[in-house]
Structure formats: structure tokens, C-alpha cells
């Protein structure tokens, strides 16, 4: 009945299964349900939409979506490739700005407790504000077609989680470790380098995984409020309003793919930089 016991049991059984072939079989059995659901969903989607002729509504057949993707990759009206590139640039720019700003401010708040007392409540309040509502203001400040307006939106969204997490990582160090450093008469600077920064790295990567998603969302949603026509957000809005939902889904697919690639890039970098961390070793079922 309890998940913990079942999980422990399954884990034990998996470990004991004989040899490489046995392990392969275990892997297949573990991932099979998810794969079946995926394939089944796609197939069902295709069949149901075709049978009920639902194209009029928001669910074109998967094949239609792929076709739209192909046709519009470089078409004049919905140039998906160019749009994706433009949005990607905005998201990356925002990610870079927001991350750098977040890390710099985090170091400042970690160093000075008064700064921390002011900035952390601010970060909490900022979480409650729908920052995206400020997109029209940014458009007016930087120009509707200027990618900077979307970059700044992405940067603001990225800034807060990065700052909050890195601050926590720099500050929430095992007191025993700090005591050890004091016993070795280490300087503040050495403590920073040898203890706080390595401690903060896992928190940094946690924030980055969130930040990549946020930067993409920030860029796309800011585009909803207005922007150059060849960006993913505008393509989504314009194709929706022309009821070309196949193109909309194609654009969303591209956005999703971009998001996943971003996320995986962070995961790879993380594995490189902090291979020693517990989360890298343990196999956790979410």
C-alpha cells in the first residue's frame, strides 16, 4: 500500500536482477508505461480528430501540425525558423542579464546582512506580482520592435529566483564547516572561495533550471503584448486569431523543444561542474 515500501522493494528487486540483460529488462519495464502512454496519446489524437473532424477547433491532427511545421519553416508570413531564432536571442539575452545581475546582488546580500533584510522580503513580494503585466511599459520604454524590451522582461523574471537561491546557497552553510574554517584562521575571502561558493553551486543550478523556463516564457508572453512580427509570441497570437491552429501548435512545439534543450543544457553543465553532489549520484523517482 505505501509507496515507500513498494519503491524500496522494486529498487531491491531491480538491483538483484541477474546481469546486464536482466538490467535491460528492468529498464524497459520501468519506462514502458510512460512510452506506451505517449505513443497511445499521439495515435489516439490522430484518430479521434480525424474521425470526428475536429479541425475546426483547436486540435489539428499531429500529422497536420508536422505539415504546418514543414511548410512554414521559412515561409514569408509565419517564418517559424526566424521567429524561433529571434525569440531564442531574446530569451538568452534576458537569461544572461538576469543571471549576472542575480548573482552579483546575491553576493552583496550574502556579505551584508542589512542588504539581506531588505532584499529578501522584496524578492518574496516580487514573486507575488504578475511581473508580466509590465510588458507594455517595457515596450514603450525600449520600443515595440526592439528585442531589448523582451530581454528586460525575461531578465526581471530570471533575476529573482537566481538571487534568492544563490543568496541562500552562500548563506546557509553548515555551521560546523564555518567553525572549522575559523579554527584554521581563514580569511573571509578564503571562506567564500572554499566553502560558500561550492555550497552555493547546487542552489545556483536549481535556480538556473527554473530560470531557463522563465526566460523563455518571459520572452514569449511579453511578445503577446506587442512586438516585431517574426517572433514566436507574435506568430502564436496571429496564427490563433487567423484560426490557423496548426501553425500555432507548430510554434508551440518549437517553443517546447527550445525549452527542453535549454533545460538539458543546464543539466549537462551541472553534471560537469558538480559531479560530487548527492543529487547527481542518487536515482530519485522525482
Amino acid at each position: 500500500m505505501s509507496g515507500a515500501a513498494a519503491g524500496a522493494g522494486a529498487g531491491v528487486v531491480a538491483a538483484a536482477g541477474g546481469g546486464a540483460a536482466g538490467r535491460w529488462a528492468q529498464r524497459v519495464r520501468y519506462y514502458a508505461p510512460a512510452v506506451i502512454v505517449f505513443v497511445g496519446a499521439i495515435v489516439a489524437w490522430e484518430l479521434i480528430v480525424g474521425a470526428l473532424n475536429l479541425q475546426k477547433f483547436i486540435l489539428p491532427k499531429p500529422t497536420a501540425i508536422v505539415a504546418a511545421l514543414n511548410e512554414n519553416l521559412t515561409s514569408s508570413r509565419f517564418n517559424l525558423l526566424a521567429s524561433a531564432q529571434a525569440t531564442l536571442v531574446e530569451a538568452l539575452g534576458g537569461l544572461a542579464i538576469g543571471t549576472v545581475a542575480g548573482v552579483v546582488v546575491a553576493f552583496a546580500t550574502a556579505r551584508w546582512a542589512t542588504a539581506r533584510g531588505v532584499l529578501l522580503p522584496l524578492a518574496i513580494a516580487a514573486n507575488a506580482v504578475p511581473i508580466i503585466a509590465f510588458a507594455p511599459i517595457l515596450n514603450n520604454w525600449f520600443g515595440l520592435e526592439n528585442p531589448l524590451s523582451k530581454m528586460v522582461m525575461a531578465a526581471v523574471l530570471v533575476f529573482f529566483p537566481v538571487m534568492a537561491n544563490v543568496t541562500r546557497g552562500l548563506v546557509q552553510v553548515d555551521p560546523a564547516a564555518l567553525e572549522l574554517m575559523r579554527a584554521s584562521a581563514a580569511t573571509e575571502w578564503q571562506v567564500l572561495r572554499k566553502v560558500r561558493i561550492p555550497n552555493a553551486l547546487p542552489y545556483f543550478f536549481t535556480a538556473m533550471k527554473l530560470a531557463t523556463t522563465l526566460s523563455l516564457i518571459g520572452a514569449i508572453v511579453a511578445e503577446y503584448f506587442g512586438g516585431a512580427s517574426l517572433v514566436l509570441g507574435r506568430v502564436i497570437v496571429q496564427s490563433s486569431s487567423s484560426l490557423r491552429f496548426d501553425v500555432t501548435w507548430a510554434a508551440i512545439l518549437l517553443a517546447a523543444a527550445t525549452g527542453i534543450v535549454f533545460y538539458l543544457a543546464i543539466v549537462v553543465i551541472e553534471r560537469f561542474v558538480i559531479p560530487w553532489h548527492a543529487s547527481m549520484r542518487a536515482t530519485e523517482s522525482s
Partner: protein
Amino acid sequence: MTGPDQQPIVRLSAVDKVFGRGGQPATTALEGIDLEIRRGEFVSLIGPSGCGKSTLLRVIGDLVPATRGDVVVNGKPAAKARRDRDYGIVFQAPVLFEWRSVEDNVKLPLEILGRPPAERAKRAREMLQLVELADFTRHYPYQLSGGMQQRVAIARALSIEPALLLMDEPFGALDEMTRERMNSEVLRIWERTGTTIVFVTHSIPEAVFLSSRVVVMSARPGRITKVIDIDLPRPRDLETRESRRYFELVTEVREALRAGGGLEGDDADGGGVASEERTLAEGAVG
């Protein structure tokens, strides 16, 4: 105070417990256990780490099924005794619910039994009075010290007025002085309620001080090496701890332990037991 009854409240006949299903190497935790516990007795189980004393307690409580042999509790098969809630159990950790006040924690088994609210409140208050925590009904677990939390756990176990109380190293996590105090507490409660107590412990002094009989177990596979009658007069107090007969009995227990194998290389504190407890819990629930 009632003397021990004629009918044994617990009878174990040729009980074996073997762990290890489906692919795991088999471990024999208990082998050939024959034991009778009379009503109103205070019996301690003592043995080296991993000797199966906690397992034996759980077999009595039907939290772990016996592989072979008979387990009769209160005149019924162990499973039925559990379903009829004939016993209360106290673990090494208090396992209080952090979201419930002290009083609500004590009411938990009464709620499960479906007792009316008025009776629940009355019983809870009586029990908290018994363990001398009547002033802390509205407090929350995190506000209490370890010893106080254990007293709440004892109050909770006794709230349904069970005939039998199982205690698994309840004071193992406490410091020595608090432990001795709690020993006197338990004896006082035992004399007031007349409940039969089966008490698992690591500590020879504790076992001798508390019990009517001490059951000494061998190292794995757990067998009963010797059952020692403790003929110290009651009520027992500080003077008892300093009496000559006490030292003789402590020595006798120690000799029996050594004979059963496992005094050398024994880990003295409860650290290893806590994780053994957890493994048992997961195995039992699965």
C-alpha cells in the same frame, strides 16, 4: 497493584522469523522462540544489536508476521489482537504528529477507534495527568524536549487502555540522567495501570531496574539464551540501584549476554537501532 495472572497474556511457541523474499539472501532474525509472558508482568528483552529483539516485539504486535510458529496475544492470534487493538506501542522515536497539539496527539488512537468526542477528551486529559504533562495539552511537539515527547507517546499508547504495552527502546535517544528519571516514571505508570509491559532495551542497568524478568537474547540468529528472574523488592528507587543484589543481577545478565555472543564490538548507543527500526517499518508496511 495486581499480581501476575495465571493466563499468559503473550505466548510464543517455536517462533521463527526469516527475512528475505524474492531474490534477497535470507536472514534468520529469530529462531525457535518459546516465551510466555504473564499478565501484569514487566518483561525486558535485551540483546546485542541485530539480535532481533525489536523484531520479536513486532511479531508480538503483528507488525511483522512470524515465518513459523504460534503467536497468541491476549488469548487470540496476534493478527486478531492487533485488529482488536489489545496493545499500545511506543517506539524509540516519539513519532508524534507535528501538526497536532499534545492533547490531539494523545487522542489519535481513540479517534481511530471511533470513540465519542467527550470520552476522547476525558481519556486524553487523564493520560496526560498520568504522565504529568497536564499543563502542556495545548503545546505542539516541537516545543517539548525529547523526554517530554516520549511521555506524550506513552500517554497516547495507554489512552485506549490496552492490556499490553510494547516498548521498543523508548529511552534510547535520551541522555543517561533523563533516562533514569523516565525509568522511575514508567514504573510508576506500570503500578498505577497494571498494564503488562514488554520492554526492549540495549541497557543492562535499565533492564534489571525495571523488570520482573529479563529475557536475554543471543546474537543473530536471535534465540533466547536465558530468562532471569529479577527478585529485587518493589517499589524500586535510587537505593535499589546501589544495592548489592542489583549489581549481582546486572552481572548475571551481562554474563548471559556474553554467553550468547555479542558483547564485544557492540555499538553502545541507539544509532544503529534507529535505522534497523526504520527498515523494519518499511518491511512491515509493504
